[in-house]
C-alpha cells in the first residue's frame, strides 16, 4: 500500500501494515484532499478501504471525491462509516452506521470493527470528533492505532490543527507512526501551500517540504512554479517547451523567440510551469528577469553545432549561478553529424554526474526523459533520504 502523494511515495516507499499516519493540517488550507487521495489510490489498487464521515452526509462525501474525478461507487472494496446521519435523524444505508454519533463508546466500537474488517480506514475529520467528544477522546483514538497495529490494518487521520492545547497537539503527533504537515508558505514572492514529512518511524527521512496545488480533477500535485529552459540561438528551446507541455505559448517573431516561451505540464504527480528564454544575445537582459526564482534549469544545445557550445556554457553559468540543479538536453540527434552525449560532455567540460539526455525536440523524442532527469535531481537533492 502507498500513501498516493507525490514525493512522499518516493521517500516513504510504502504505508506498511499496522501503521497510523496523520495529516496534520493548518486551518487555512484545504487539506482534507490528502487523506481522500490516500484512500482513493488504494481503492484503485484493489484494497478494502473505509472512510469515516462525521461532518458531512455520505452523499456529500461522495460528491467531494467527485470534485477530483474520484468515483467511490465504482469500487466494491469501498465502504462508508456513517457517523453523521444519526445527528440529523436520517436513515443510513451505509455498511457501517454509528446510530448515536455523540456516544463515544458506540463510535469507538464501530470504528474498531471497520479497522478489523478493512485494509485501510480513513478518518475524514478527526478534529471534529475531538470538538464533539472532548479532548479526552484522544485516548479512545489511541486504541484505534493499537487496533490497527494488531489487525495488520492501517489508519489515516485527517486532523485540522485548530488552536487546541499544546498537549492535545503533541498527543496527536505522538500517537501516529507518521505525521505529514500541510500548511501555507510565504517564501519571498511565492504564496503557496506545502506539505512536509515531520516523521515516519519506518523510513529514514529528514524534513522534506514540497509545494503543492490542487488540480480538479486530479488531486494533490507537487508544484514546481518555474523551470527555466535556456540555450543558444536556434538550439530548439521553443520546440522543447511545446513538445513537453500540455499547453504552451511562445512570443516568437520571424522565427525566433523575442520574449519567452511559457508552458504548463502535468507529469507523474507534478504540476510544472516551464519558462523558455530567448537565445540571441541581444535579449540577455530578459534572462535576468526570467531566471529569478527558478528551481531548476534545462540547457538545450544543438548537438550538431559545437560552435555554439561556448555560448551554451556561458548561459548555463548565468542561470545556475546559485547552485541550481541542471540537466543538458542534447537536441537534434536526428541530424547525421550530431555529437553523442559523451562527446558533448567532453567538449563542454561538464562534470560526470550531470545528466546529458539525447533528444529530438521537433518529434518530441526523449523530452520527458529530460524532465524526469531534472525531477530526480530536484527530489534527490532537496529531499535526500540520508
Amino acid at each position, binding site marked *: 500500500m502507498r500513501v498516493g502523494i507525490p514525493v512522499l511515495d518516493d521517500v516513504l516507499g510504502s504505508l506498511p501494515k499496522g501503521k497510523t499516519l496523520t495529516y496534520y493540517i493548518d486551518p*487555512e488550507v484545504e487539506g482534507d484532499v490528502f487523506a481522500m487521495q490516500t484512500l482513493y489510490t488504494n481503492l484503485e489498487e484493489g484494497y478494502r478501504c473505509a472512510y469515516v464521515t462525521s461532518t458531512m452526509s455520505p452523499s456529500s462525501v461522495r460528491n467531494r471525491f467527485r470534485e477530483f474525478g474520484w468515483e467511490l461507487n465504482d469500487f466494491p472494496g469501498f465502504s462508508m462509516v456513517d457517523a453523521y446521519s444519526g445527528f440529523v435523524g436520517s436513515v443510513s444505508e451505509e455498511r457501517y452506521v454509528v446510530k448515536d454519533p455523540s456516544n463515544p463508546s458506540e463510535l469507538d466500537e464501530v470504528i474498531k470493527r471497520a479497522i478489523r474488517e478493512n485494509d485501510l480506514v480513513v478518518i475524514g475529520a478527526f478534529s471534529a470528533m475531538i470538538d464533539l467528544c472532548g479532548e479526552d477522546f484522544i485516548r479512545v483514538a489511541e486504541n484505534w492505532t493499537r487496533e490497527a497495529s494488531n489487525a495488520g490494518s492501517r489508519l489515516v487521520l485527517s486532523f485540522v490543527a485548530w488552536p487546541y492545547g499544546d498537549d492535545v497537539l503533541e498527543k496527536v503527533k505522538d500517537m501516529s507512526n507518521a505525521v505529514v504537515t500541510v500548511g*501555507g508558505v*510565504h517564501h*519571498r*514572492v*511565492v*504564496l503557496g501551500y506545502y506539505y512536509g514529512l515531520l516523521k515516519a518511524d519506518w523510513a529514514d527521512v529528514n524534513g522534506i517540504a514540497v509545494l503543492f496545488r490542487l488540480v480538479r480533477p486530479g488531486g494533490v500535485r507537487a508544484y514546481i*512554479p*518555474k523551470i527555466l529552459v535556456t540555450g543558444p540561438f536556434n538550439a530548439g528551446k521553443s520546440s522543447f517547451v511545446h513538445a513537453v507541455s500540455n*499547453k504552451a*505559448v511562445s*512570443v516568437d517573431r520571424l522565427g525566433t523567440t523575442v*520574449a*519567452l516561451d*511559457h508552458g*504548463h505540464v502535468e507529469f507523474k504527480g507534478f504540476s510544472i*510551469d516551464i*519558462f523558455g528564454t530567448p537565445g540571441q544575445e541581444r535579449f540577455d*537582459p*530578459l534572462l535576468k*528577469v*526570467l*531566471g*529569478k*526564482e527558478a528551481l531548476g534549469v534545462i540547457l538545450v544545445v544543438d548537438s550538431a553545432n559545437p560552435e555554439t557550445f561556448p555560448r551554451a556554457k556561458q548561459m548555463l553559468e548565468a542561470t545556475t549561478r546559485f547552485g541550481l540543479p541542471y540537466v543538458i538536453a542534447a537536441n537534434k540527434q536526428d541530424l547525421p553529424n550530431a555529437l553523442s552525449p559523451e562527446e558533448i560532455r567532453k567538449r563542454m567540460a561538464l562534470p560526470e554526474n550531470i545528466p546529458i539526455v539525447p533528444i529530438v525536440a521537433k518529434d518530441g523524442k526523449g523530452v520527458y526523459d529530460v524532465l524526469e532527469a531534472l525531477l530526480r535531481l530536484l527530489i534527490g537533492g532537496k529531499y535526500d533520504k540520508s
Partner: protein
Amino acid sequence: MTSLREMLENVLRDLKSAGDIEASAIVSRDGLLIAADISQNVNAEAFAAMTATMLGAAETATSELGKGIPDRVIVEGKSGKIIATGAGSKALLVVMTNPKANLGLVLLELGKASEKVKELLGG
C-alpha cells in the same frame, strides 16, 4: 486573522468595485502569479509571465535610452486596455479595462492599489 493572500485579493476586489476594471492580477517581477481576479478560462499563469516580460522589456528599453524607469505600460486595443505598473521591487500590478474606461480614473485607482500591494509585500 486574514492571510496575506486574502489581503492581496481584497486589493484586487476593491479595484474592480471602482468600476471599468474587468480583470486584474498581482505578478512577481519574474513572472509568477501571486494573486488574480481573472475569469477561469484565461490561462492566468501564461498571462502573468507575459506581463512581467512586457514590463521588464519596457523598463530595459527606456533605461537603455537613459530615460529612467517608466511608470507604467499601457497596451491599447479595441476591446480594452491592459495596464501594467510596478508595485514595489518584488511585484507588479496589471489590470484589464473595458473599452470605454475612463483612463484618468483607472490610473488613479491603480496608483493607490499599487501602493497597497507594495506595503503588503514589504517594499
